[in-house]
């Protein structure tokens, strides 16, 4: 049996908050580090540029999710790369994925916020690459039945999520399903552990493997990843896999599930008291920003990014025990300042 493999690479830029103190509230100080562009350029050159170059030049197809935060700065810092990507997208060699603009958990917390983010992301992809996206990479691969309805209404035809063994039962080898409420909406189940177990189960034919940019480097980079996998599976586009699957098995998931593709569990992003407290305060503001300008909405949205949530969990910041608590205070100060703009 020929195994089919589709690779997805995630590029996000984790914005650095400024040291926003209580006394900075109302001062007009930026919420993010004033040297952000320089920081991005340095990180981009060391971590992302080479990988993107290899992907653009590669003979093998891939799908890519660029967060809005990443893409905004890529456009500023590397116009040539944007052109190269645009050309690769046009050829069908690189498929761009839809997603949340600020890489947030909005699909769990606010339908309004989720719609906003997806809309902004679609607009940015259209403006930058002149194309639209049809497959959706949701933050942490969060999925549930109602999300399929929402995504279909936003123009998507498929989404990734995790393979829940106890749910799959006799269908445990299947990786492509239809959603419960939308029969022609595909649900693609990712392989955990960056596909380390990819070839252990011969019964599994379809494989969807995801890497973030850091993991890609750990794997030896794009070319090395392709070298390791291409002699064991055919690397194909997402469309190639979903088009071949004619089955109508349904992945009927009522409660949100996620799909782990890196070292962090979903619960580590929103269940710590600091994270829960922060998200509550942020989403308590949602009704009051519904009719505000896009600029204000984007500022609010950016504060819910998973990069901030990571910094609020002491388990993910073992080096500095006070860092999470300091970050929480900074965020509270920022939110107090933001309220003044409403």
């Amino acid at each position, binding site marked *: 049996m020929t195994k089919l493999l589709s690779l997805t690479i995630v590029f996000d830029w984790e914005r650095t908050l400024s040291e926003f103190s*209580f006394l900075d509230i109302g001062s007009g100080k930026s919420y993010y580090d004033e040297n952000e562009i320089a920081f991005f350029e340095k990180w981009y050159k060391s971590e992302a540029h080479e990988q993107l170059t290899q992907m653009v030049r590669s003979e093998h197809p891939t799908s890519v999710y660029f967060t809005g935060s990443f893409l905004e700065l890529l456009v500023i810092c590397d116009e040539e790369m944007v052109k190269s990507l645009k050309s690769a997208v046009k050829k069908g060699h690189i498929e761009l994925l839809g997603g949340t603009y600020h890489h947030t958990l909005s699909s769990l917390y606010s339908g309004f916020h989720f719609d906003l983010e997806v809309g902004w992301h679609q607009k940015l992809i259209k403006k930058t690459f002149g194309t639209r996206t049809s497959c959706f990479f949701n933050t942490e691969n969060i999925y549930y039945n109602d999300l399929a309805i929402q995504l279909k209404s936003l123009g998507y035809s498929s989404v990734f999520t995790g393979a829940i063994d106890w749910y799959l039962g006799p269908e445990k080898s299947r990786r492509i399903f239809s959603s419960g409420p939308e029969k022609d909406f595909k649900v693609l189940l990712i392989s955990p552990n960056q596909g380390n177990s990819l070839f252990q189960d011969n019964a599994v034919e379809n494989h969807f493997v995801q890497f973030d940019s850091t993991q890609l480097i750990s794997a030896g980079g794009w070319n090395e990843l392709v070298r390791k996998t291409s002699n064991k599976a055919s690397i194909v586009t997402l469309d190639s896999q979903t088009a071949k699957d004619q089955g109508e098995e349904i992945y009927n998931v009522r409660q949100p599930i996620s799909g782990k593709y890196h070292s962090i569990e979903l619960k580590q992003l929103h269940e710590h*008291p600091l994270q829960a407290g922060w998200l509550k305060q942020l989403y308590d503001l949602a009704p009051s920003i519904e009719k505000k300008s896009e600029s204000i909405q984007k500022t609010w949205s950016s504060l819910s990014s998973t990069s901030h949530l990571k910094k609020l969990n002491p388990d993910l910041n073992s080096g500095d025990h006070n860092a999470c608590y300091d970050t929480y*205070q900074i965020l*509270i100060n920022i939110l107090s300042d933001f309220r003044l703009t409403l």
Partner: protein
Amino acid sequence: MNLKLLIFGPGAPDRQTSGLGKAAKHLTDELAKHVDLTLIEPKQVETLATKKVDHETLSFSDFSILKELATVSIESQLSAYHYQEVTSANTMEKVESQRLYKQLTTFSEELVLAGKKTDFEVIYAHDWITFKAALELKQKFGKPLLLHVHSLDFDRNFGQSTSWIFDLEKKAMMEADAVIAVSQYSKKIMSTEYGIPEEKIHVVYHGHTHAKHLVSKSPFTEKIVLFVGRLSGQKGPMQFLDIAEKVHEKYPNTRFVMSGDGDLYKKLIEAGAASHIADRFHITGYLGHDDLQKLYGLADVYCMPSFSEPFGLTALEAADAGLPLVLSDKCGAAELLPEAALADPGNVIQFAEEIVAILQDPKKSKARTEAHKEIIKNLTWKRSASKILSVIESII
């Protein structure tokens, strides 16, 4: 010829971040104008030494005495206030650990070693960490000993009177020639809880450093209730959160700010995050002098819910900045601030009602705050140092 005074300073936390550190620094500066003074204190304070001290960090066996004021740094580091942090759990059982006692022993040995090399006529020791060494020197050389007690184990541990630190404080105060208390409130504890003869205890109130007040325009429509102090159990920071919630229930247009650092920093932030006032509850961490003055300028009322506060320098700072005060009824500074509202730190509702009363009627507070400003004008470290010199003269 000047009197030769050997001071065992408190050192840590440090001169900037604690009332003990600030008071000891100001008093030392003033006393140095009148006596030949050698100051020996924990090493980490050395970087914050007074302008008069211009030497680099010295190894302990290599100390030198400067002409006017010598600061000798010692390698051992022990904090008078932060000893609860020595262990991960703040139980007295843990505090009374062998580790802490060993630290004190090492620290005292170094103090004694330094003291032996110093020519002095009187020993003047600040708070419990220096008492063991001070007693040893007194016994060895038969020189008079003056203790300055800024806070007691009884204050720091909610009325606890069964620890070895309590016993050390008691022994030292019993054997000292004189003891300085920072308030009548503290003197009463020494007398009733430690059994120290009242005639041996001299009350010398702290002075005050008059700051230039900054008029800050608040960006908020809400009124600000302020807490300034170490975030440790003694200061009642968790009480402040409870008080804040009650105040907010009765007076919703409020915002709450805690300035300070300490072992409850993380717990307070987590508790604040889970509170219904999470969006208006700020913890600034430690603030430097200028930022603290700005904060006083933004605040509308100052709250000090300490469970036991021998003095409470920040109450003077807040009063000097023109803030109406709601203080613990177990607070020494209240003896100098008769217009402050007092409340039982165990009674959250009473505290909240006093704060709300001030917020609802700021005009009524105006006369009170003006009265405090007049009182504070007369408070100087020079005056305090002069009283300490009188006590020293009485024991020579």
